[in-house]
């Protein structure tokens, strides 16, 4: 069988869109304007949105929102307060953060934070509840009485 490693078409376009995506990944907490991102990629706004969506399946704005919510999930899991998280990921009001978070994640940020706290308490108390028995057995974890499942 033949295989080819030809220089792929429009490599410079790919590099620019990828750079724009990485720009969002690292500047999500700032007040990013779409025009800034398009400028970063040296594209017209319309052309940039079309290319970005064809590669990532989301418009740059939809992608920015997804990154912010994902970062918010990570920070809430790290025990930060809802208001700290809201501003840390680039939202300007708690109400817009809360409603968007609920629409995407399915629960409010405070409910999510509480769920995570309860899960951590359970993890500390009975870690084997979170590990498939086969792996725990192979690792010898179920021989350690500290890891026994609390009924």
């Amino acid at each position, binding site marked *: 069988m*033949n295989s080819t490693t030809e220089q792929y078409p429009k490599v410079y376009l790919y590099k620019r869109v*990828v750079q724009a*995506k*990485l720009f969002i990944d690292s500047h999500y907490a700032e007040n990013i304007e779409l025009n800034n991102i398009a400028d970063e990629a040296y594209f017209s706004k319309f052309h940039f949105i079309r290319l970005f969506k*064809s590669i990532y399946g989301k418009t740059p704005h939809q992608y920015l929102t997804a990154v912010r919510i994902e970062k918010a999930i990570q920070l809430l899991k790290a025990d930060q307060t809802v208001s700290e998280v809201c501003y840390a990921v680039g939202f300007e009001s708690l109400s817009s953060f809360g409603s968007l978070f609920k629409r995407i994640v399915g629960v409010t940020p405070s409910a999510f934070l509480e769920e995570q706290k309860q899960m951590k308490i359970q993890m500390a108390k009975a870690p084997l509840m979170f590990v498939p028995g086969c*792996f725990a057995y192979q*690792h010898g*974890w179920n021989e*350690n009485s*500290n890891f026994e499942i609390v009924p």
Partner: protein
Amino acid sequence: MTNMCVYVLNQDSAFDFYTNKLGFKVKMDVPMGANARWLTVTPPEQPELEITLFPVAVGRMFSEETVKTMTELISKGCFGPGIFSCTDIYATYEELKSKGVEFVKPPTKEFYGTEALFKDDSGNWFSLHQQ
């Protein structure tokens, strides 16, 4: 498949590689005593596939000799645990490369699609594939 296991040489380093470079999400990170943790991640677009990043360490499963052999084989790139599909291999390749991921084969047109090969931080290699 819902769960798979990738043997890694250092869990902390694997955590950084799979989350910060590949962009995977942490599913479970459960402390299991002083020197162990139950660590699983999922590909961002495939949350139903849980990948356990399992440390190669002496225990019931691995003797010291086995750890030595496994470490050597993984480091040498003897294991290729799987294939990841993506919607745009050129964009994924450019992104991962810019984050320092080592590719042993750039995107290449094959009879079954376009494929690239990359290594994780331990030495396991994966295929990146686009139909």
